[in-house]
């Protein structure tokens, strides 16, 4: 039996790495991937707590999170294609139409 704390610590580390990737990456697709990494870290915490409590609700939340992530990826990548077509770049620093 592995302590729940180990899973939560791993989840926290993965979430922190996701935040780091979100801050440091400049490619809009990679930024999207770091959001998926953070969602995965939260899913791990959900399943760990579900196991610790002996209830299934956490696992069902994870299934809903995965469904929403799939919908988000479809719409988000549509937006990425649109940006790439209109601005001819994937660098988020060159997408500065709203900047003064």
């Amino acid at each position, binding site marked *: 039996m592995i302590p729940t704390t180990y899973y939560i610590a791993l989840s926290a580390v993965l979430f922190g790495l996701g935040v780091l990737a979100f801050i440091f990456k*400049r490619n809009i697709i990679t930024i999207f991937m770091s959001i998926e*990494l953070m969602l995965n870290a939260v899913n791990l915490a959900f399943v760990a707590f579900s196991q610790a409590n002996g209830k299934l609700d956490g696992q069902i939340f994870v299934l809903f999170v995965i469904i929403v992530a799939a919908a988000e990826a479809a719409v988000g990548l549509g937006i990425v294609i649109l940006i790439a077509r209109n601005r001819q770049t994937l660098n988020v620093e060159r997408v500065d139409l709203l900047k003064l």
Partner: protein
Amino acid sequence: MSAQLIVFFVLAALAVLGALSLIFQKHPIHSALSLIVVMVALAGLYLLMGAEFVAAVQIIVYGGAIMVLFVFVIMLLNAGLEEHTSISKMAGFPGILLAIALTGFIAATVARSAGTFAQIPDSTGKISGGLSSTHDISTAIFKTFVYPFELTSFLILIAILGAIVLAHREKH
């Protein structure tokens, strides 16, 4: 050290290495492949916790569908190496400070509530006693959570329509 613990540490190391590789790779396709490693490692951890259905969905939906979509878009747009300007190098220092502060907050919270996790009664027997079986998950989804489950089908329908409208090229 028990066999379970060894498997946990191998999979955890694989996940963390994959996440680090996601940050340090310069090419988006390499980052995508690193993310697939993280997702497969997490599926292994779900199996270790006795959540077989979530592990299967993780591999099919995340490792299969979502990552194939990402790789497809990377190849479609012919994404090249990342370019860093002077502004992005300037963002490095406050970014590292912010990440250290966030990790500190999470570590403090985990350390403070470690006693609370220990108070939760050990439920190994309950999990292996069929609580986590796919049958129980389907009963819960189609009885307790049937309304949110139906809502997600609308959500996916709207997402499909939105993706088509966004990516559709208008003829002039």
